[in-house]
């Protein structure tokens, strides 16, 4: 990237932060975000490939991007990686569902009763800081080396961030908006559905987002432990299995899959936010 003192800053006008940095004299900033990121990605992959080719590092320790791409392609076409991904996602989905239900019950109790609120605050302050994976030994003790143990761990991981966010959302609803709802004669469930829920939506979405992120990290960690124990069949198991048989590119292909799904989940939430709370000015976009 060359820098120049007579940069055309007007081309960077749509993006304010870019415009500000462009004024300091770099043509780089005037490029669109997608282009900047793509260039960087390509550069990193090229450097990586160069390093592997030139340094002669052992293929048992490190794979080249080309090998990984090949393993990735094979994994997806042969169905191994697809199967592993589906197993993981199914367990994650089940855990999320249970976690969301428990969170919904806790939040309802916390919103309507004082004792419910106290219970939620207490449980959350104790269980939320605990890394969810720490529950796994107990879960294995209770459920054995079965998917149920994983589901339990995931449910525990996602319940607390969701519950605490949603109940904060309900409790911090703008009192004027609430008065407007009551002024229209809204009560009970209709008040909750038409006023409280949309008003609490920014918190709800960020709770779900955090919940998914926690759940995703936790399930991979739990499956790796399971993989070591020889059970499962999900992505963590896939990675462990590949390592055991020294199929190093497949290890990397598993990691790439995990990263891509994480990115996709994040994109889904960003998409939902764009269409709701950001569009309504309830949360500022980034």
């Amino acid at each position, binding site marked *: 990237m060359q820098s120049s003192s007579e940069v055309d800053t007007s081309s960077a006008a749509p993006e304010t932060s870019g415009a500000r940095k462009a004024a300091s004299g770099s043509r780089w900033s005037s490029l669109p975000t997608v282009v900047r990121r793509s260039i960087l990605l390509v550069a990193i992959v090229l450097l990586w490939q160069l390093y592997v080719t030139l340094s002669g590092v052992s293929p048992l320790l490190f794979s080249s991007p080309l090998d990984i791409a090949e393993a990735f392609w094979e994994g997806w076409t042969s169905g191994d990686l697809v199967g592993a991904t589906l197993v993981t996602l199914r367990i994650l989905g089940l855990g999320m569902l249970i976690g969301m239900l428990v969170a919904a019950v806790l939040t309802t109790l916390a919103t309507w009763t004082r004792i419910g609120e106290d219970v939620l605050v207490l449980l959350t302050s104790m269980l939320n800081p605990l890394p969810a994976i720490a529950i796994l030994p107990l879960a294995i003790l209770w459920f054995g080396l079965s998917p149920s143990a994983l589901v339990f761990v995931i449910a525990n991981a996602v319940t607390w961030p969701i519950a605490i966010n949603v109940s904060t959302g309900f409790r911090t609803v*703008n009192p*004027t*908006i609430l*008065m*407007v709802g*009551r*002024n*229209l*004669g*809204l009560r009970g469930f*209709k008040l909750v559905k*038409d*006023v409280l829920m*949309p*008003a609490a*939506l920014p918190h709800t979405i960020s709770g779900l987002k955090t919940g998914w992120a926690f759940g995703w990290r936790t399930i991979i960690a739990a499956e790796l432990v399971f993989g070591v124990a020889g059970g499962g069949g999900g992505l963590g198991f896939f990675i462990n299995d590949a390592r055991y048989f020294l199929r190093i590119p497949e290890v990397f292909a598993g990691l790439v899959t995990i990263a891509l799904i994480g990115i996709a989940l994040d994109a889904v939430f960003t998409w939902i936010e764009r269409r*709701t709370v950001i*569009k*309504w*000015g*309830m949360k500022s976009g980034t």
Partner: protein
Amino acid sequence: MREQGERHTPRLSEGTNRDFGGEHGDAVSTGSTETRASGRPLLTVDHVRIGYVVDGRLNVAVGDVSFEIWPGEKIMLLGPSGCGKSTLLKAVAGFIEPVGGHISIEGHDLIQPGPDRAVVFQEFDQLFPWRTVADNVAYPLRVTGKEKNEAEATARRFIEMMGLSHAAERYPHQLSGGMKQRVAIARALALEPLMLLMDEPFGSLDAQTRTRLQKELNDIADRTSVTILFVTHSIQEALLLGHRVVVLGQPPSEVEEIVDVRNVKDPDTEEFIEVRRRLRELLAGEGEDVDHAIFE
């Protein structure tokens, strides 16, 4: 408290017709045919005392306030900032329970919030952020039982009255403060309530828009039998819109005086100047910066 000026008979609402667009207003618009003796007040505020609990202590905002509102009347609440005007309005709306005294509506003591008393709040954030302007006005109509098409048509009419047709599809966060307030006014008017409770609704508008909307509100009140409780800082506005002006003092506030301004509408008359001077005195006696607070 005492009342000043000639005691005029207020208009009484005839029946229940509250159709803003209708042609029925004439029969009840003159205010000279009915007497108070023939009915009962729509709203009675009787030795009401209201406070907020702050840090476990009761902080009294409204000390002892009594007045009545007769059907079809326009009552202006005037008083220094922080004297409890909004608090009183919220109590009438049913959001705050007085710690003493009674508020009753048509004889009923225990009042709940309801669409028969549509409120225009003082706060700017009173619109639903997730609904467009058109939807913010139409949704309350749907909730109170109107058909979809009728609700949308009515909403359109009142949005146009507020001069906001161009912004009907925008979301509240894309509006200026004054525009938001006008949407809230449209929403309240469109409900065609028994009572309008308005908390400084025109406070954030420019002079021309304010004058136009004051006239619009007067027209609506003339055409229908709506009863209005209106909070304002402005003596000018109180005189222009009101039948009677309830002047409140410093918190914990009491009624300083209830001034009848029904026949004081022409700014050039002696009487108008006299009443305005009296109101200024009342407010000034309360330590308000007269020049600053009273002239708009």
